[in-house]
């Protein structure tokens, strides 16, 4: 066999391997998409297709009935506005408070900061459900039941956020702050004009986590928001679904689409920050 034909054989074998690899990877990725596609497709199916013995991935008989039902028989628009507000305000408050806590734990010298940090980290180990009743009693005593602040404030000092930001703040060179101090910057100005802009990607990543977490939060907002007009999407949609074991798959899937599409858009907008935050962890910029 000539050298030329052996080379051609190698090239073709490599190409085949690459094609097989990509086919396998894209195939696996497509498998993960199937449930989402089914959710999306079912939301446009007629009742007959929804209950059909054979599951249909492509709805050949389209209807907007389930969307119409949700939009006309529920407060879904109000719930969506509420959810955006709650998630937005919680994200801003958590980022602000957590960044200040993390900064004070890493950059300021005060007695007991190590112990406080240990307590914050240890609080990871306490299941949230255990705190439910005590925190509810405190919030109730403060008169914050049925108020958005009753939902926002208990999550303001988020241990996950503090822990995550502490790790990022440790990577910021102290020389930057010293230089700023020499230029006459106050501590607050250093924090707002040097530290926070440097942490933009980390804060964006934390913001994304908090936004998604608040968007999906169920039990705590349900306890605090005691009015149907104040419900968030996850709560409101469940009130439409659950009834003596009676569930309409069309309603469930359409609710799932409505609840998840905004989140997907937020994720797509923020994903470059998320990737950058992961990249920069452990490095110094």
């Amino acid at each position: 066999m000539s050298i030329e034909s052996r080379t051609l054989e190698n090239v073709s074998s490599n190409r085949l391997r690459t094609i097989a690899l990509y086919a396998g990877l894209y195939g696996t990725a497509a498998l993960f998409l199937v449930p989402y596609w089914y959710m999306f497709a079912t939301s446009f199916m007629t009742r007959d297709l929804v209950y059909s013995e054979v599951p249909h991935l492509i709805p050949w008989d389209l209807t907007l009935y389930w969307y119409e039902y949700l939009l006309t028989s529920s407060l879904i628009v109000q719930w969506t506005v509420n959810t955006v507000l709650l998630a937005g305000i919680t994200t801003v408050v958590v980022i602000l408070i957590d960044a200040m806590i993390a900064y004070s734990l890493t950059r300021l010298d005060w007695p007991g900061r190590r112990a406080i940090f240990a307590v914050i980290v240890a609080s990871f180990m306490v299941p949230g459900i255990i705190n439910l009743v005590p925190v509810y009693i405190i919030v109730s005593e403060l008169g914050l039941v049925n108020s958005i602040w009753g939902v926002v404030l208990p999550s303001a000092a988020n241990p996950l956020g503090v822990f995550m930001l502490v790790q990022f703040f440790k990577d910021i060179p102290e020389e930057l702050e010293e230089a700023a101090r020499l230029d006459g910057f106050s501590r607050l100005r250093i924090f707002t004009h040097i530290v926070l802009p440097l942490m933009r990607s980390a804060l964006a990543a934390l913001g994304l986590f908090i936004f998604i977490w608040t968007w999906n939060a169920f039990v705590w907002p349900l306890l605090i928001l005691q009015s149907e007009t104040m419900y968030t999407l996850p709560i409101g949609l469940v009130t439409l679904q659950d009834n003596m074991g009676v569930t309409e798959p069309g309603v469930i899937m359409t609710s799932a689409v409505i609840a998840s599409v905004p989140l997907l858009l937020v994720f797509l907008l923020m994903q470059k920050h998320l990737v950058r935050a992961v990249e920069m962890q452990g490095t110094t910029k």
Partner: protein
Amino acid sequence: MRAGDKRERSRASVRNGSSSTSRRGLLRAAGAVGLAGLAGCTGFVGGTPDGVEYWTLFAGGDGEVMEAMVDEINESDEHEWQINRQRVPWDEHYGRLYTSMVGGNPPDIAVMHSRMMHDYKDNLVAVTDDIGTEPYLQEVAQGGMVDGEQLAVPIDTHPFGLYYNKEVFEEAGLDPEKPPNTPDRFYEAANAIVENTAYYAFDYPENEFHAETMRMLLHGRGGRILTDDYEPAFDTDEGRAVVQEMHDWVHEHEWAPVDPTTGWDAWNRGEVGMKIEGTWHVTVVREAGFEFGLTKPFVMPDADDPVTLGDSHMLIIPQSDDRDRERLENAIETIRLLSQEFNDRWGSEAGHLPASEAALESDSLRESDTWEQTLGTFYEMVDNDQFIRPPATPNVEQYTEEIYQPLDDMRAGNMSPEAVIETAADGVEQAFNRR
């Protein structure tokens, strides 16, 4: 602009003592103010609303009826107070109610099932002198009585019945006007459907209602689920016969599918002959669109005393230090309106059997389609003493789960009837011992 220029400008602004309000900063501030403003404008910032706070767990068909009833009271000139009704997700209703009572922030009125009364009885306002049990079906009203005090007022009872698809009956060569209301007829119909059609003959509920179906069948054979001391009482010949029968529906006769979801979907497609469900199911079968009938769920062979089983939706007033006399009176009047004046609508439109005697005798209910299709049969069973209520005990949800989990496992083919009895009996004992 070069980075050096930017830094220099920043330093200069600091030296000059001026605050550098950039365009981006202004936009951020405007965004934050806008968000807070929007929250305020939409009322999302919150506050304590005036009026009677009423927590329900009704969604779907009966949720819409309750909403309409409350709206009518609110819009009426006869009543000066407003009712703030809110739906609470079914699974979270009791957790939220409990937390709110512990936190001292309970609603003025809440819906409660009569079987849940035991755990809440010490924290409810008695309405014995204000409302009383006389206006209601006595057997149903007793569900709200504890030690001679009326702590809850019933709006309905929602027993089980046997729904059947008349179109499937016809296809199987059965007379659709001859309901399968005895064990023999049930067997005959089920066998005919399996032999003559490609459909399932029968389906029945899973989870909590699976355990209640067992309780209903067991009672018909003279057995019980619990003793008066909350000990398991189903490890008997009767208990074993009932569990064996439920096993055979799926695995011996192959009348019902192994997977309850398959059964539910097939029923909605009109491909199941018969199905045990409660009063609420009438809205589902109407939506499904096939011709249906309802009969008594007396499907257990050798049952000398067949019964249906039904819990009740009751209205309670949780105790609260913050509630003044006027608010309490408004709450009591709201309960009276919903459980008496509007009770016929609750029957004819939501499908539940009204608790009020007057509503049950009313022309508006008796002449409704719902009475003819379902409620007449349900009422007949209640009126003939063929009706039981699940008892109010401690740890209701826990011990019920200890029964339905092995039953669900048996239906899935993972457990034998003997193992179900043994596992469920151990579980029930533990559920009460944990207390």
